[in-house]
């Protein structure tokens, strides 16, 4: 049977997910994800014509609150877990090329 998702697709999805995969993982995931998607395809046995998609089960919609300014975490706490920081900023590698 054809695989639902081949290795090229796995690489493409990994790129979308910003996830670096080893060649071994690409191969493994192609097999496993295909098996899972084959199983998931059983949903097609059900006629869902006219059925509304259900995103959540709550008896509530659009929760609003008064727009009141509140204390926020503050720079120190916000940066406390940053892998790299520089003063009051998160530090990342250079994004723009030199001109």
């Amino acid at each position, binding site marked *: 049977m054809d695989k639902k*998702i081949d290795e090229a*697709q*796995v690489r493409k*999805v*990994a790129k*979308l*997910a*910003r*996830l*670096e*995969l080893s060649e071994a*993982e690409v191969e493994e*995931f192609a097999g*496993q*994800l295909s*098996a*899972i*998607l084959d*199983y*998931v*395809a*059983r*949903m*097609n*046995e*059900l006629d*869902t014509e006219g*059925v*509304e*998609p*259900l*995103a*959540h*089960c*709550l*008896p*509530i919609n659009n*929760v609003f*609150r008064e727009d009141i300014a509140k204390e926020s*975490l503050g720079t120190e*706490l*916000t940066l*406390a*877990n*940053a*892998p*790299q920081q520089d003063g009051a900023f*998160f530090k*990342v*590698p*250079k*994004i723009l090329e030199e001109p």
Partner: protein
Amino acid sequence: MRDKIKAGEISSVAATRAVFERIAKVEPIIGAFISTFEEQAIARAAEVDNRIAKGEPVGQLAGVPIAIKDNMCTTFGTTTCASKILANFHAPYNATAVAKLMAADAIIVGKTNLDEFAMGSSTENSGLKRTVNPWDIKRVPGGSSGGSTAAVAAGLCYAAIGSDTGGSIRQPASLCGVVGLKPTYGRVSRYGLVAYGSSLDQIGPITQTAEDAALMMNVIAGHDPADSTSVDEQIAPVTDYLAKLDEPTKGLKIGIAPNFNAGADEQVRKAIDEALKTYKDLGASLIEIDMPHLDYAIAAYYMIATAEASSNLSRYDGVHYGHRTSQPNDYIEVYTKSRAEGFGKEVKRRIMLGTYALSSGYYDAYYLKALKVRNLIRGDFVRAFEKCDSIMMPVSPTTAFKMGEKVDDPLKMYLSDIYTIAVNLAGIPGISVPCGFDDKGLPIGIQILAPAFSEDKLLRMARMYEKQTDWHKKRPLIIDE
């Protein structure tokens, strides 16, 4: 325990010390905790004792040693989600459920192991440590709240809280022989619970008895302005779950879906049938119900939950917090390598699956289809509850399985969630209650389901069963060894 501490019969310090003595002895075998806080716990216990001695008012859980699943934020210690990517993460605030436990004067013993980001059914997906089942240390405790259920079963705390996205409280509770309640979606605040599948996640208690679960619910349930999906109490009031706990439900109508239950192992089915007989002897009537869409719950769940997960876990970017790769060649590699190094295999698999389900060209066929199937599944429950007060079924098709038995076959692992998953899709509450053992001495749980926001009735049903049996009093031998 709470009553004894409040009455001054036993001090909280003594109870807490006893727990840590047991942890010192048993925890090296069980591996339930990612972190423990002995010094802080005993200091807090002493403070509670002091207030009791002075006759000052104390909270509902005064002095009781309690454990927290390590996917809930605490300002003390780390909040790791059992992931390498968060191994050194110090949360800047407490989860609301944790804050409520502390406000009720509970003593936080430690934070328990889980499948990484709560993704799994055996706790084997933890990136940090291994937890075993206290009933048989070669077997899994279930998951993902396996650390919490193992800790309660092995007497390493008096109660714990876990989270349940597809069965992660109920299934490990069943496999470890303890009580586990997944409340209605929206009953307990998710603020500070690290998100996995946001429309499915719910925090709930793991305890030795239904009574303890009711007490825990009294503390953690309720609206929280910080979580817009926690339900307003004007829509669904929170009741005192202990108040009518001992009143049995009269004329109870129990719904059974025989075809669906047939998939469970023979010994599990036998224990469930025995439990149903107990309810019948108490005056309940059994009604056959038809739940035609439950067979599709796993398929829908693994699209919806992974789609939500792929979005939720995009926050681990190697920039704001968490692990960052040491030598990225460019800024893209900060993302791709940090995530590759920080996430374990199951987390990667689910991110991939969810990203695929949401990707252009596949969205309608997978994600949207799954949301429609979700509506059909909810319809099954709505129709069933027109005929009965409760639905009962197994929690897990098998008792605890062996370590490593299913790790290489993700689909097989997913299928072990068959009885628990639909409940999350429908948003209703469910409880796992111990109802027997198989011939290997492994615990079996019965799952009791009820309509949304009727946790009070659910707990009463569990309580009326517990009064007739002593399954919930059985403890694994490891406590005495």
